[in-house]
């Protein structure tokens, strides 16, 4: 079953750090959206759907006499842009069980046009008898019409539905993506292997070499390609931001509800008890997002362009580094690295070991001073050794080439930004590039 993917990264799938923690983080993010959807949906159901259902199922029919008429006025928007709406209302006197009750009931929809609302009101006469329905639990609540407003249901459930779908699909995808391969049976003491087991996407004609399509779909401004960054920073920022917005939306709705109750002279202790931890989490989310945003803004983006891709052993290429940000940098370094990555799973353990087996410095710059709106730019030459191993990726093992930028700002924490590249094997008979 293919689950909908509501967003996908332009440059395909990359994962850094621990595969397990990456999956856990992703699952938590989607689970949070699901919870927000459930909470929001719950609020809307209790505020709109349930009252409407009660009117249609629990209210008792009666006949009321019109003893008063009026226009109810509502104002929306702030003081600077206030807009009024009008709704025809009648005061009814009606038998409610053994007693007589008297209450106001709306006699039509809200109208932005006062004249139209008045016209509707004029059609009703004092002393006229009307069919009405009252709440047996609260006889002072009475309505003149019943039925379901399906458009309102669809609109009010749209946002929580979207959150549930987004979060649910993402959560299911995160859980499903935790295992792609079949278990190896040890019944005979050997491990039968499935040659067709799904693994990383390979380049056509070059088995087990990772596809570099996602790395060459962004043209550079000066050199041929702009390389995508392999870093969780931007996604962490996006995730924190989405979480802060959605969570605090829920908090705001709860707070408004609690506020309205207080203004009405009622204290909903349960709502207040729920609100306190929600507010704490919401504030923490905003603080975390703000901190990440400040760090990302202060350090600035790192961009890397390259003259050709994929790379070949023996080849020489140009790289252009552009670093943004503000303030002083102690140093900035660029290097080409070859990293081996081995994942081992057994029992309940999952471990990924990484080892940089080759490293070549490409450039180093000290004492930089960056100001807002400007970027530090530097060029470097990349020599891929003639006997270099090509990039390799299988299900549990990989040999990755990458360009690594290490920066040490004076006032901010040091950062490492990684740009993956793919090295192909030299074609047989082809001289080095």
């Amino acid at each position, binding site marked *: 079953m293919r689950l909908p993917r509501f967003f996908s990264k332009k440059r395909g799938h990359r994962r850094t750090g621990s595969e397990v923690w990456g999956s856990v983080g992703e699952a938590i993010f989607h689970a949070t959206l699901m919870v927000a959807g459930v909470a929001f949906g719950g609020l809307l159901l209790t505020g709109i759907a349930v009252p409407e259902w009660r009117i249609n199922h629990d209210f008792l029919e009666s006949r009321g006499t019109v003893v008063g008429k009026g226009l109810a006025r509502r104002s929306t928007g702030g003081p600077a842009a206030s807009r009024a709406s009008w709704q025809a209302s009648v005061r009814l006197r009606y038998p409610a069980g053994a007693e007589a009750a008297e209450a106001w009931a709306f006699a039509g929809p809200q109208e932005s046009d006062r004249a139209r609302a008045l016209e509707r009101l004029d059609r009703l006469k004092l002393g006229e008898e009307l069919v009405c329905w009252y709440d047996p639990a609260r006889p002072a609540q009475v309505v003149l019409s019943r039925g379901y407003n399906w458009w309102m249901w669809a609109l009010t459930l749209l946002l929580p539905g979207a959150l549930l779908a987004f979060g649910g699909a993402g959560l299911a995808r995160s859980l499903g993506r935790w*295992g792609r391969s079949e*278990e190896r049976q*040890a019944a*005979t003491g050997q491990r039968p292997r499935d040659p067709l087991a799904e693994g990383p996407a390979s380049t056509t004609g070059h088995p087990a070499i990772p596809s570099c399509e996602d790395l060459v779909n962004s043209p550079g401004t000066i050199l041929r390609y702009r390389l995508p960054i392999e870093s969780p920073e931007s996604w962490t920022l996006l995730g924190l931001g989405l979480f802060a917005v959605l969570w605090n939306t829920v908090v705001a709705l709860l707070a408004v509800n609690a506020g309205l109750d207080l203004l009405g002279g009622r204290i909903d202790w349960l709502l207040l008890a729920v609100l306190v931890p929600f507010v704490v989490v919401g504030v923490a989310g905003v603080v975390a997002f703000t901190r990440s945003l400040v760090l990302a803004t202060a350090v600035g983006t790192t961009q890397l362009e390259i003259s050709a891709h994929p790379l070949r052993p023996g080849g020489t290429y140009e790289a252009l580094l552009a670093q943004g940000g503000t303030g002083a940098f102690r140093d900035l370094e660029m290097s080409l690295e070859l990293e081996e990555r081995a994942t081992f799973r*057994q*029992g309940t353990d999952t471990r990924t070991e990484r080892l940089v087996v080759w490293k070549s410095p490409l450039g180093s710059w000290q004492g930089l001073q960056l100001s807002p709106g400007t970027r530090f730019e530097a060029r470097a030459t990349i020599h891929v050794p003639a006997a270099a191993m090509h990039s390799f990726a299988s299900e549990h093992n990989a040999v990755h080439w990458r360009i690594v930028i290490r920066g040490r700002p004076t006032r901010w924490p040091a950062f490492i930004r990684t740009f993956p590249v793919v090295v192909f094997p030299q074609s047989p008979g082809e001289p080095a590039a």
Partner: protein
Amino acid sequence: MPPNLLPADRRRSNPFATRHTRPGAVPPLDPAGAPLRVEVVLAALERHRRVAIVGPHGTGKSTLLAGLAASLAADRQPAEVVRLRRRRDALRLIGMVARGTADTTLLVDGWERLGRPMAVLIAAIVRLQGRRMVVTSHRANGMPVAVRTAGTLPLLTAIVGRLPDHGGLISGDDLSDAFARHGENLRDALGDLYDRYELRSRRS
């Protein structure tokens, strides 16, 4: 017709690579390093129908389970093996249990990953089916314990003795040091020995 041989340095296989140390590659051994007879587990299984192999990380639980599976296969007794590493494996276990037959023994590696409610449910279903089941777990889980595994230096020494020849690059002191650094987790100790062998084989 003699086989064509490559220079020895190109053919050196690290004896501590996972292909040599994975469960099933080395026969199950007890904490003293002696062969652990799967008959011990089979006898407990006959008595209790559902038993557990209990022990900390990297002490041979999966290896013993693999040996048990091989023994059942050799005796043509039907058995199903599930290793609970991912959420999807729990679903697979449920499917196996649902369609299983009483004569098939269930071998489950990583029982503690199920979580208590699911574990209780599956154990109850297996009991109702009358099936035999052997699980591995880090802690006792209410089932009778067939074997308690433990990581010991004699066990590590015995395992290394059954691996391909390391050509003298690993000494007894290396084993003691690796065991001291990683305690009972022999899997980590073997990983440590892998690094030592790799470093020295490149130097020699």
